[in-house]
């Protein structure tokens, strides 16, 4: 809908200050569909030139940009091969290049690493970072949460077409932590005293586990436990992975 392929049944969407789907908006948008299909009778260089021309680039610009982009996605040795001879990973790379040919301000990438090997994934991550550094905004839609975690600045969870929550992945200090404590003389008062910092606590013998919304609270928590007479042998803060966060936010597997 944001790139103009599907019409909204109601309401409107504004992209880059204009109604979504308009020609002027699309001039500033790059898009790599998840189920990408291209004209396989074209060579890699021809495909990029075609998409560049359709994006309004001049032949002068194309002469330098096509080889640069082919090189950027690591396909220079294959630039004159037809796409019908490309593997899925190679198609994904050239698909990414066509989305970037006109240096768009806003880039939508739908599962851009799903067909790639680890080296290809690293390449895509580097390209996305380079686009961000150039000043572009990249929307990365993916179910591979580890990729999101190491690539994105911000994550939005969507369920049934509605935004459930969003997180700023750059804000490491304010990120929720799980803390595992191994201690003796752990009294009920000491555990109850964690309430100002902790959202959930669990005691299992000598092991206390709790979550806290920010690492800034850790020194105060440790001081509180010691002051309450607890002998602390281990105090291990663990960052919640995006996957843990996903499970926590989205709930049980509903077969989606």
């Amino acid at each position, binding site marked *: 809908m944001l790139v103009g392929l599907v019409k909204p049944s109601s309401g409107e969407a504004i992209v880059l200050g204009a109604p979504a789907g308009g*020609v002027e908006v699309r001039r500033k948008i790059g898009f790599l569909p998840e189920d990408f299909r291209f004209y396989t009778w074209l060579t890699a260089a021809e495909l990029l030139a075609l998409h560049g021309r359709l994006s309004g680039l001049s032949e002068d610009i194309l002469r330098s940009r096509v080889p640069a982009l082919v090189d950027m996605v690591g396909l220079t040795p294959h630039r004159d091969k037809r796409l019908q001879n490309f593997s899925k990973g190679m198609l994904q790379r050239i698909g990414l290049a066509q989305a970037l040919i006109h240096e768009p301000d806003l880039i939508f990438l739908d599962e851009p690493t799903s067909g790639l090997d680890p080296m290809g994934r690293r390449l895509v991550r580097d390209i996305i970072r380079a686009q961000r550094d150039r000043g572009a905004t990249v929307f990365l839609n993916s179910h591979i949460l580890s990729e999101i975690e190491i690539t994105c600045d911000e994550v939005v969870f969507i369920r049934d077409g509605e935004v459930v929550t969003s997180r700023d992945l750059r804000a490491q200090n304010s990120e929720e932590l799980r803390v595992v404590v191994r201690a003796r003389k752990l009294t009920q008062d000491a555990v109850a005293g964690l309430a100002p910092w902790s959202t959930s606590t669990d005691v299992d013998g000598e092991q206390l586990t709790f979550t806290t919304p920010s690492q800034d609270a850790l020194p105060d928590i440790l001081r509180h436990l010691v002051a309450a007479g607890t002998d602390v042998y281990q105090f291990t803060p663990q960052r919640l992975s995006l996957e843990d966060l996903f499970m926590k936010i989205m709930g049980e597997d509903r077969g989606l």
Partner: protein
Amino acid sequence: MALWIIAGMTFREAARKKILWTALIAGLGFLAVFGIGLHYQMADFSAGSMPAFLRYQILSGMLMIGLYTVDLLAVVMTILTSVDTISGEIDSGTIHAIATKPISRWQVLLGKWMGFVGMLAIYVSLMFGGTIAEAHWIGGVVPRNPVAGALLVFLECVLALSVTFMFGTWFSTLTNGVIVLGLHGLAFLGGWLEQMSGFAEGSRLVAVGIVSSLVMPSEAVWRRAAFEMESPLAGSLQFSPFADISVPSLAMIGYAGVYLFGALAVAIYHFQHRDL
């Protein structure tokens, strides 16, 4: 600009997929068979003592059969080569990367249409020109009005193309092919029933032909083309398959033109507004 890029891409696609070359080779095969047939016919004439005017009518008849075959080949090839171009790209998702570029959807559709129109112009010119040239060189016969005939056959092909594009914005490739070939079959049957009215002397057969021509005017355009090209004597013979028993009027040709652009306009409108 985008129109010409898409048109050029359509042309190049047909060349790369060998569609263009296969069609031209098949056309050359047809011309070879037609030329051999004419050659043997001339040899048989030399051995006999048939009056010259009768020879001329037979050779004219052979030319008309040749041109009718060209017409059928051109229309069927138009439908077969273009049936997948819109629906296939929608079904496969190839259209996604193109339709999200800063061009209007009407430019995508019209550019493809123009690419096919260009190819059809070349194909019809070569096939018509080749058939007429062979008939002239080998048999010494020429159609009465070859330019009008060729233009009408070209119109018929572009009409079939536009209808194929129109249904391609709604239906899958297979369904689209069934619909358009079915419509052309209906027009074909209606046209021949109208021709049969010469034997039956019934206006009801003419009415059936007119109604089928209104539903799909492709065959009516051919019958007008045949009327333009047939020699007046052969055309007046009621037993000829191309006899001018019920010649479609110029109003019907105008209707075919309106039909063509109407189908193209509907195709553009629907493609512009549908989800991809």
